[in-house]
């Protein structure tokens, strides 16, 4: 073997010229410099994180308390951290794109390829590595607590899901340092992403990051659904579940049925690219419409997968911060189910213009409009919940208010777009970009941020700083409005999406407004980071360890904050919907009991991390054609998996007296504390014990 052969054998098609840093040195134009700088930032960021952990001497604790943990609460937090890191990148890319288009009349400063790479990574990251992990994270943390379970049904599989999601994120991040990501958008339509038009590693990065993360999501869906069906506490009938759990159930059903089309589509595209198949090629009988159908068969349910949990969060937040039982619970449940079913019947509205007959278009158009009905039901239910409630405008409620106003606009433009004749006019314009950001940001992102602010004290034992939270929430709301409402106009004026520049001067003022909005969003993110920093610094003042800072209504608030590993010292006996509110009203909350039992919990395992590492290497090996590494990684995954099945000692038991000791210590603190009224909810005195207030007290005395 010559040395040339050896390097190809060792490194596949990876060489010096695939490094953006090297390219920036070779030809320092602005686009290359930005790419090189991004690579440097990733490397520097990685080094900084490693240094920081070493400085904290936290490696051991990171490994034993977090990475190898099977605790659904820790896994949930790790999902959220991953999502926030990726969100930073996604938002920075968004600002770059906005800056480019603001300068688009004179051509901008980025090459069209670089701009294409930006919207592709931005879209992929925001959907798969921000919205999805945030959803999975919040579900992981909250759902088992709300149904009175000790953990997920399959805690190790849960860890593997996280590992596979992280793999996808790492692959996208690696594409900044090694080579380039796809320029084929987040939907990656062939034949453009096929080998004939795109032989480079870009589409392969997209394929493997999305395919691997997608498998993780399928497993999550199975886990969530089985947990809800099988792990509910005694007395927790389905129709006593908090509404959030209902939305989680519907979301997980969507995960189970809608992720497979994505897996199939990505793997078929991979077969075309790697094995010379002809599923989607232009020649030899390939048919790219199959890809488009498969992709949107996943893609449309996906958006409901994301937004349903947000609806659930909003239901919880509205009920709690209005001090009222959720209005129209049953109708909300059926609306959720209706949306889940309808979400599978409308995928074609993403390609009305791609040549099917008018009748087919009309059928899908009407189906799409139908979704507005159950969604409308929900909005009215939430408003009725607030009516005459004891409303407090805390940070989650600010987000929810932003949601109400803005999301309705997004929904209405959705109904407009569901009309095929209109779509023919505005397809592929910025009107569409405005629409989907208008549902995704006020809907999914605001909903999740509201949830994070609402449940943060549960997870960490202290509240988030209220002032910075308000700043951040308002910046998000106004930033969004400036960044996207102008795009409706510019879209109607005919500006195509995904264009790096334009030549109609009428677009420019609106593009400048949009850039201003994007800058506000960036500041909102900065305010969020500052808020977290300030809150951690002042955690003693903000502490609410007793567990119920908002006068909560559902079971998760009946535990100390943060809850112990096993969640509930004794499994709750559920007697009512909003069981904790009912328990507080008739005095059965915070009761001691004589029958503590031993609790068996799953042990830590490194399996998830091993699979994550091996899958990451597998992805890199496939992207760069390093076949020996690909085979080695597959082998590692299989062996690790089989070896795990030979381990029998996978649980440990916490003795009853340790549990009773911990639980009684907490009860004693609750008894000693003085409960606070809702007026002082955001003051330092809020230790997490609530005075009963209207209308609960009224109801109890009745």
């Amino acid at each position, binding site marked *: 073997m010559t040395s040339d052969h050896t390097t190809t054998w060792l490194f596949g098609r990876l060489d010096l010229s695939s490094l953006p840093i090297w390219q920036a040195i070779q030809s320092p134009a602005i686009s290359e410099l930005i790419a090189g700088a991004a690579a440097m930032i990733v490397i520097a960021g990685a080094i900084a994180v490693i240094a920081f952990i070493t400085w904290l001497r936290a490696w051991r604790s990171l490994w034993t308390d977090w990475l190898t943990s099977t605790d659904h609460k820790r896994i949930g937090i790790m999902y959220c951290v991953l999502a926030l890191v990726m969100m930073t990148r996604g938002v920075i890319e968004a600002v770059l794109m906005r800056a480019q288009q603001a300068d688009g009349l004179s051509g901008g400063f980025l090459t069209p390829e670089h701009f294409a790479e930006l919207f592709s990574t931005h879209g992929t990251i925001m959907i798969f590595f921000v919205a999805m992990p945030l959803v999975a994270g919040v579900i992981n943390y909250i759902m088992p607590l709300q149904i009175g379970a000790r953990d997920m049904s399959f805690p190790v599989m849960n860890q593997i899901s996280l590992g596979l999601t992280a793999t996808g994120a790492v692959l996208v991040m690696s594409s900044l340092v090694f080579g380039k990501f796809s320029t084929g958008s987040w939907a990656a339509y062939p034949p453009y992403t096929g080998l004939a038009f795109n032989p480079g590693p870009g589409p392969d990065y997209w394929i493997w990051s999305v395919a691997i993360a997608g498998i993780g999501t399928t497993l999550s869906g*199975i886990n969530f659904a089985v947990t809800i069906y099988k*792990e509910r506490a005694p007395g927790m009938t389905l129709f006593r579940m908090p509404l959030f759990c209902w939305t989680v159930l519907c979301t997980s059903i969507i995960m*189970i049925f809608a992720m*497979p089309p994505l897996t*199939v589509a990505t793997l078929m595209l991979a077969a075309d690219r790697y094995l010379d198949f*002809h599923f989607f090629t232009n020649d*030899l*009988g390939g048919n790219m419409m199959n890809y488009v159908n498969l992709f949107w068969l996943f893609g449309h349910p996906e958006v409901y997968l994301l937004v349903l949990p947000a609806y659930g969060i909003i239901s919880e937040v509205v009920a709690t911060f209005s001090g009222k039982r959720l209005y129209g619970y049953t109708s909300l449940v059926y609306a959720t189910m209706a949306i889940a079913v309808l979400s599978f019947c409308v995928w074609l509205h993403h390609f009305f213009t791609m040549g099917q007959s008018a009748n087919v278009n009309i059928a899908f158009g009407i189906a799409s409009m139908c979704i507005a009905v159950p969604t409308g039901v929900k909005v009215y239910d939430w408003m009725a919940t607030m009516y005459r409630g004891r409303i407090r405008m805390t940070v989650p409620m600010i987000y929810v208010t932003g949601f109400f106003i803005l999301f309705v606009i997004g929904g209405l433009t959705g109904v407009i777009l569901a009309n095929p004749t209109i779509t023919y006019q505005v397809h592929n314009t910025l009107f569409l970009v405005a629409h989907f950001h208008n549902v995704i940001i006020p809907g999914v992102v605001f909903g999740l941020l509201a949830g994070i602010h609402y449940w943060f004290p549960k997870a960490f034992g202290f509240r988030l700083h209220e002032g910075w939270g308000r700043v951040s929430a308002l910046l998000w709301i106004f930033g969004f409005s400036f960044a996207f409402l102008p795009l409706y106009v510019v879209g109607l004026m005919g500006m195509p999406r995904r264009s790096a520049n334009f030549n109609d001067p009428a677009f420019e003022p609106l593009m400048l407004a949009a850039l201003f909005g994007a800058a506000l969003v960036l500041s909102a993110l900065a305010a969020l980071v500052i808020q977290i920093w300030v809150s951690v610094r002042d955690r003693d003042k903000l502490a609410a360890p007793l567990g119920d800072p908002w006068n909560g209504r559902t079971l998760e608030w009946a535990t100390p904050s943060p809850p112990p590993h096993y969640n509930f010292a004794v499994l709750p006996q559920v007697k009512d919907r909003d069981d904790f509110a009912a328990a507080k009203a008739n005095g059965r909350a915070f009761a001691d009991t004589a029958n503590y039992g031993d609790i068996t919990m799953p042990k830590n395992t490194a399996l998830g991390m091993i699979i994550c590492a091996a899958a990451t290497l597998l992805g890199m090996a496939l992207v760069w054609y390093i076949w020996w590494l690909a085979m080695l990684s597959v082998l590692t995954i299989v062996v690790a998996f089989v070896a795990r099945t030979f381990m029998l000692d996978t649980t440990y038991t916490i003795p009853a007296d340790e549990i009773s000791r911990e639980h009684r210590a907490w009860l004693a603190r609750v008894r000693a504390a003085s409960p606070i009224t809702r007026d002082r909810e955001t003051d330092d005195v809020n230790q997490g014990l609530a005075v009963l207030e209207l209308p609960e007290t009224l109801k109890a005395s009745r």
Partner: protein
Amino acid sequence: MRHPGINLGEHHGEAHDQAETLVFGFWVFLMSDLIIFGLMFAIYVTMANPVGMAGGPGPKDVFDLTSVFIQTMILLTSSLTFGIASLAMRHEQGRGRIALWLGVTLALGLGFLGFEARDFANMIGMGAGPSRSGFLSAFWGLVPLHGLHVSAGCIWIVVMLIQMRTFGMIPIVKTRLLRLGLFWHFLDLIWVGIFTIVFLAGISA
């Protein structure tokens, strides 16, 4: 009945209790896997036409129905033998009996794979590999995917035979065998679909 399919029964105690969640979870997984196969079938159907065949060989040129029939018989029999193994487990007829019938199932599975591999090699030999046309891509995407599942099932049987020997019939081994059984019968079901939609419909068209 605690879950669809063969139940171990109350006399299995802990294993029976654990089966409720574990087997239910596995059913849900199979449902998801079924979607994958369903989509591959749909793709196949849309490509099994002259446009998809792009002038290349069609079903009549490449399918060997005799061999496919033998494969079908082998696989159906293997489902029967797995069923006998499951019943032996349910009625606690001893490890040896269970292992025997699992062994027979494994042999049949390998036999199926052998015939299938031979057919695949023949197809490649006559220039009917996946690169020839969209139709053949769809075939090579669907049928080997099933074969891959069967191979995974065979490895799983081997692992279970080892675990039965080293651990005995402990609860986790029993619930794993229950799930393996579902998997095996599921693959049979898929094969019935392949036999009908790919082979019979292909030859008769």
